């Protein structure tokens, strides 16, 4: 019983991390319909950003959020404006360009750091909450709280603010949104910036948990894609719950089968969902095809 409980807790904490990483990808994917292969690298940049803040100003990773997140927002806006906006209606070229960015970012960081692993320690890293037989690492719990807060904030934002409504309008129909006087390009730039900022947030919160390497983004990106497809394209709560589903699957597969096979298990679930419900568990039916309609 306690081992089952332990697996569930491990799975939920892992799910919080996956949900956090997926949140930005889902926003970009859902609104702009861009498959951003470089999203994992944005998380990686966030982690290294936290490390740089720690190294030069001795900042705790949790405080460096206030530097890293705006920096990543800016980076995302620039990326969208100069690289992805010109490729708006060409999904293949987007894949091409974002994969180029992935290679570029990964290897620039590799060239700068020469592949050495770093961690950005936080004062919170040492704390562990013990509840009966369960040990809960505080830094992982923070990630779980953060993803919940981010999901709450995002769903409030898109429902209740003018900018959020504009983003939803653009998601539904670009042309109609443009005719209503919405600046589609600006909405995209802000959305991409927000997606990159969320990646930066994920990176800073993960910096105390994982040892950094330039390739670490690759560990998250597949999970994030699985979460996004599973949860439903463009659905904030879909990504949130999808994160927990993938986290729990990984925890159970790791305990009962073999940790080495976790990716294979994800894939089966992933493909199964794609076949049965291509729009994802919480997505709108047919959402997966809307993005491919010619939109101007």
């Amino acid at each position, binding site marked *: 019983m306690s081992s089952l409980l332990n697996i569930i807790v491990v799975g939920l904490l892992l799910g919080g991390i996956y949900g956090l990483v997926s949140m930005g990808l889902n926003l970009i994917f859902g609104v702009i319909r861009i498959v951003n292969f470089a999203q994992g690298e944005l998380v990686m940049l966030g982690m290294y950003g936290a490390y740089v803040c720690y190294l030069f100003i001795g900042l705790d990773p949790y405080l460096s959020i206030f530097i890293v997140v705006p920096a990543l927002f800016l980076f995302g806006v620039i990326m969208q404006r100069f690289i992805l906006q010109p490729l708006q209606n060409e999904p293949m070229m987007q*894949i091409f360009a974002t*994969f180029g960015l992935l290679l*570029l970012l990964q290897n620039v960081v590799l060239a700068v750091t020469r592949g050495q692993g770093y961690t950005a320690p936080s004062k919170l890293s040492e704390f562990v909450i013990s509840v009966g037989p369960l040990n809960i690492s505080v830094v992982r719990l923070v990630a779980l709280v953060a993803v919940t807060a981010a999901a709450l904030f995002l769903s409030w934002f898109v429902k209740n603010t003018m900018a959020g409504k504009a983003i939803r309008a653009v998601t539904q129909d670009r042309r109609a949104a443009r005719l209503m006087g919405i600046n589609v390009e600006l909405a995209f730039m802000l959305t991409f910036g927000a997606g990159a900022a969320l990646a930066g947030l994920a990176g800073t919160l993960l910096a105390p948990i994982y040892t950094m390497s330039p390739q670490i983004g690759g560990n998250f990106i597949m999970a994030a894609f699985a979460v996004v497809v599973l949860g439903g394209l463009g659905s904030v709560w879909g990504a949130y719950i999808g994160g927990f589903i993938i986290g729990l699957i990984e925890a159970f597969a790791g305990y009962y089968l073999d940790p080495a096979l976790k990716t294979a298990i994800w894939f089966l679930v992933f493909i199964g969902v794609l076949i049965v419900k291509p729009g994802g568990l919480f997505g709108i039916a047919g959402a997966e095809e809307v993005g491919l309609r010619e939109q101007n």
Partner: protein
Amino acid sequence: MSKTDTMSGVTSTRDEGGAVPPGITTFNTELLRIAGIAVALLAVTWVYSGDPFILNIMAQTFLFAAVSLSWNIIGGFGGQFSLGHGVFFAIGAYTTANLYINWQISPWLALIPAAILAALVAVAVSWPTFRLRGPFFSIATIALNEVAFVLANYFGSITGGPRGLTIPFKAGLENMIFTSRFHSVLLMLGFLVVCLIVCAWVFRSRLGYYLQALHLDEDAARATGIRVLQVKLVGMAISAALTGIGGALFAMYLRFIDPPTLLSLPDIGVKFALIALIGGVGTLYGPLAGALLIVPLESQLRAGLSASVPGANLIVLGAILILFALFMKKGIVGLVMQLWDRFGRKSQ
């Protein structure tokens, strides 16, 4: 040097069809062009036949050109942007290596099961994933590649696991292992020519037109009576079979294979697609042009720069990708044709 020579080979063959608008050539015309390209590449190989370093680059260039051409059948003509062709490549490599190491079956014979197995797996995994369109299909194929990587590490009895498989050196034509690198390059060139011929045939066949039709508009293609799923599956099977053969040749050339060599995304699975895109996706000769540019460039960078700056070759590759996506969407072939339209036509 080799790059400029062969590039002009591509352009000059374009000249022959100058009177006819490109795109309405017959299979026979393409065969003539392919013969011209083969002779040009053979001549270049001959010139450098004494330099093992350059020969190594050429062997890899021809192999990647060939596999990228195979990718182009489903990825370019059919528009199904697969990033999981590394799986079929690995299947070919592991099949051939296992048959050769454990049963001493000549690699030449092993090419047949390698191709069939790759095609069967391709059809089996594509059946469900072809329901997905555009980026969703690409994501699923990437996931497939990741799963194959996990499985290749896990089933060590077939793949040697993370330690990989080493193919013993027994030189001989029947073993497809050559003491002279020149002969290996000739083998790769032969495979390249085979792939060019198959591609030209597909391009000018009913299958090729169906693929191009569903690439342009899948719903319209279905409405005109094309059996979309069946056409995609046949295209994928041909593409995967050739890719499997490519993997087999790769295994016999390197004589050492392990999961990272065969299933790395930037070095294998995605590179096939990127080479095609840089050359000109969906065009007949694009992947060849792309490989002639990218593979030697990357080898040079890897040899020259990576010692002082780790990952320098991939930094350059990444930058090239972004620049091509932004400014040269139709790739090298598109640029050449544009230049031809602007300057070549007037001088006639």
